[in-house]
């Protein structure tokens, strides 16, 4: 009688721990670089190109209100057309709201917040001056015009208006 040899099969299970580590590394990277505030920067607006513009820098404590102006002069908030006066009034009220109930916020004090205007390069001056006048009316004295750097993106200058 021949003894049958029994082969014991080995179940090969890959170790998923290293691949899971790499995936978590990638997730952490994308979570750190994702910016939901960038959604407020309308990508459909083509900014003008300027050679002498300074790199963007804002104080971390400074509040700012972003105004995306398309080439027809309309204010766009997350892709939707909004009324400029109403939007500015809402934002200014939120900024002037005192953090401490005891401190009264005067409506006539100049705003410490800045208005950041991202206007399309084909926006007519009359629309732009209307936006600037509205900002001034609501107390903004610090206004920043966003542009593209000519050195960083030389091809942007040649795009048609």
């Amino acid at each position: 009688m021949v003894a049958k040899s029994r082969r014991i099969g080995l179940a090969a299970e890959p170790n998923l721990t290293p691949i899971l580590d790499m995936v978590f590394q990638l997730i952490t990277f994308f979570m750190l670089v994702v910016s939901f505030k960038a959604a407020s920067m309308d990508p459909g607006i083509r900014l003008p190109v300027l050679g002498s513009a300074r790199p963007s820098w804002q104080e971390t404590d400074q509040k700012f209100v972003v105004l995306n102006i398309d080439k027809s002069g309309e204010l766009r908030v997350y892709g939707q057309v909004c009324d400029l006066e109403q939007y500015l009034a809402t934002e200014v009220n939120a900024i002037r709201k005192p953090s401490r109930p005891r401190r009264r916020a005067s409506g006539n004090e100049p705003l410490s917040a800045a208005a950041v205007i991202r206007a399309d390069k084909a926006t007519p001056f009359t629309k732009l001056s209307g936006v600037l006048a509205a900002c001034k009316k609501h107390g903004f004295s610090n206004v920043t015009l966003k542009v593209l750097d000519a050195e960083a993106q030389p091809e942007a200058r040649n795009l048609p208006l």
Partner: protein
Amino acid sequence: MARKKVRRKPLQEASLNLAAMLDMAFQLLMFFVLTFSPAPIESQVQMMMPLASSAIGVGAAAEKPTANDSGSSSQTAGRLTVTLLAAADGRIRDMAVGNTVVADLGSLQKELLGALTKAGSAGCQIVLQVDANLHYQDLLDVIEQCTKSEANASSKIQQMTFVELRDKSLRR
């Protein structure tokens, strides 16, 4: 009396099935990869506008927003008017520094440089009379020429005022 051998059950290793967790991690990763969009690096031009109550100006200039580069008074500074007219498509058509018509941005810079040099240490206040139809890009190009002229001249631009030209008779 023989002792009974107590057979202990062999220890079973508890293995954690990571396949489900890996699936979820890949789902999250795909979400972030698809929503990730690198934005172009933006630069900025800062302006300080005087408050409405403290606006000083003549005629229409008083109602328009002005950009004040420094806090100094512009009473003793020379006043220079730059006129920009736009074509029907909004592009710049004619430019003039005072009464001198200039052909292009290079000539504009030269005229501004000459005017700023003449103004001397008192500086200069530039009044930009801009056609209502002029495109924003062209306006910024002119402002850039003004700042370049200031950098090359010994004089300083104390204030820049924008006046909107609404007279359609100026357009061709």
